[in-house]
């Protein structure tokens, strides 16, 4: 009990058994189904998985920005600095958004409003949350553009989004997100839409600013390479659930969940050796009709009848390494650890 309270002290955001569903005419889509993770103050957590696995929905659930009418958090809780975000009023939540928790998105080309200058768009959040004058907001916008390393910020604040390249726009998005010194930045595939050369720059920028401003980052990506560089903790998601969680050095040296193993084998250079890339057989099942028991069993080479009966729990197979698979037990870990 005492241990628990000490642990919670450094925790900024705690997601507990989050369940988010979309209600469509075809039925309930259980996009996120029992996701649990913590983000410590100043830490970086990587949330990894293929498109449609529920990682973006997790972030939108935290922000309470699910599309109204269709998407809803149906279970679990999200504690921000120990307070349940579900209990906040809409106005209270608006004071959190862009101020305490910020978000940047995958598509810098469409995430900025085309009819406002970037200065106006950066200044808007500042004016909203800090109640400063238009002039101060402008100065803050210049300062933020300088921070995200955009040349000639005084000139650039008068530019419209269409005058900037994709990488520049993502820098502007970061400037908007960080303009009010948030404690948590959620970056949803921040580099996916960018050129490879720009990707590294943007990631380095996020890492550098994180260090300077001391914020925590939730890095959502399908790119294992990205989390390997940046994250303190990695959670691998599949079909709305977390299947494996550990520090990156553990997960990369000894992945245990068959899905994580498959994911590693499908990426060139992840193991350092030149070899034939392996694809994970089959396709992601429909979220309208998840398989019973373990959701990966339909694509898993190790699955048997037992996997269909009940969903596997997330079990700590070695200190700090959690896996949700019936075929992986604590007994496997030391053996693998010795091998590594």
């Amino acid at each position: 009990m005492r241990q628990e309270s000490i642990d919670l002290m450094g925790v900024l955001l705690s997601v507990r058994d989050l369940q988010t569903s979309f209600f469509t005419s075809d039925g309930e889509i259980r996009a996120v189904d029992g996701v649990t993770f913590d983000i410590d103050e100043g830490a970086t957590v990587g949330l990894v998985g293929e498109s449609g696995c529920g990682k973006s929905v997790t972030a939108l659930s935290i922000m309470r920005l699910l599309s109204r009418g269709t998407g809803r958090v149906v279970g679990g809780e999200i504690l921000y600095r120990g307070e349940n975000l579900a209990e906040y009023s809409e106005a209270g939540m608006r004071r959190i958004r862009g101020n305490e928790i910020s978000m940047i998105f995958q598509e810098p080309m469409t995430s900025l409003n085309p009819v406002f200058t970037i200065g106006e768009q950066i200044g808007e959040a500042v004016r909203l949350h800090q109640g400063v004058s238009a002039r101060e907001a402008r100065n803050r916008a210049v300062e933020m553009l300088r921070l995200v390393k955009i040349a000639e910020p005084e000139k650039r604040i008068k530019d419209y989004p269409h005058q900037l390249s994709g990488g520049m726009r993502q820098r502007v998005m970061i400037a908007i997100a960080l303009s009010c010194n948030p404690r948590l930045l959620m970056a949803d595939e921040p580099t996916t839409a960018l050129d490879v050369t720009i990707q590294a720059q943007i990631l380095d920028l996020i890492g550098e600013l994180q260090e300077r401003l001391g914020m925590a980052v939730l890095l959502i990506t399908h790119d294992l390479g990205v989390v390997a560089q940046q994250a303190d903790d990695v959670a691998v998601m599949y079909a709305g659930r977390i299947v494996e969680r550990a520090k990156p050095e553990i997960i990369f040296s000894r992945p245990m969940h068959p899905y994580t193993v498959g994911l590693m084998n499908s990426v060139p250079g992840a193991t350092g050796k030149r070899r034939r890339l392996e694809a994970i057989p089959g396709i992601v099942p429909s979220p309208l009709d998840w398989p019973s028991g373990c959701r990966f069993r339909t694509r898993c080479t190790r699955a048997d009848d037992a996997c269909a009966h009940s969903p596997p729990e997330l079990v700590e197979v070695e200190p700090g390494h959690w896996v949700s698979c019936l075929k992986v037990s604590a007994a496997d870990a030391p053996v693998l650890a010795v091998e590594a």
Partner: protein
Amino acid sequence: MFTYITRRVTGTIPVIILISLLVFMLVQSAPGDPADLLLSDEATEQDVAEARARWGLDQPVWVQYWKFFTAAIQGDLGTSFRYADPVLSMILDRLPATIELSAFSILIAVVFGVPLGVWAGARPNSWADNFGSLFGFFGISMPNFWFGIMLILLLSGVLNLLPSSGRDTYGIASDPITGFYLLDSILHRNWKALWDGLAHIIMPAIALGTNMMGILMRVTRSSVLEVMHEDYITTARAKGVNERNVLWRHAVRNAMIPIITVVGLELGTLLSGSIIVETVFSWPGSGQLLISAITARDYPLITGTVLTYTMIFVVINLVIDVLYAVIDPRIRFDK
């Protein structure tokens, strides 16, 4: 911005010349001889021939057009066959009434159509949306002349609330300053005349503007609906912007672009509609003038009026083009 406007203005010159040629030829090819129609039954063949010679109708069409063209670029649109007055001054006398009616109709259409559309688009499938859509369909499907007659029947005939025709009650109007009665009454602080003018304009303006209002409502709704799904709307919400500002600040300004296009396109319909509505309400505008000119085959008056409408249309399109640039920075900066 200046080059943008200059380029657009230059582009309209050939359009106007071409239209003038087209109108001139079309009018001439319409059946019925103005000399036959305008002269009395007792006129001799010699009288008719004299009239034709006086009006230049005995000359080849291209000679007539050349004469018309050279005079027109000097600001002379010819003399009416029927009234023997200069066409230009006749049109200028009537034009303020038409512009006033059209402007008032657009005002009604925009003031009701756009907010209703935003309202419906922000809450798709709500009762507000259903009500708005019903209203929109009503506006679109209603022929303006029929709607005008129904309004007269109900509001003037049965309820006796509003005057059924004309622009003012005799003797009440202020001295003209601008020629727009409503504006003149305000300038004179003549509130009685303003009230009288409003009572006269409201029915024809509703009859004329309802169609555009319906279309605007529908277009605004779909435009807002589409924009609300854009990524930058999520960005705005993620910044902590409240829902009212997300809608009216971030969404509506982007949604305006298709709306303005539609306003521009619909102005043509509105302008031609005004010709009919003016006739229904005996509104003393240039539309009514055009109808009577056509009936009498008053060639110079027809050509002059149609050309005036063309010019108005061209100017409106110019204004719309400039408005695009004002609203959408991407157009402003593209060379």
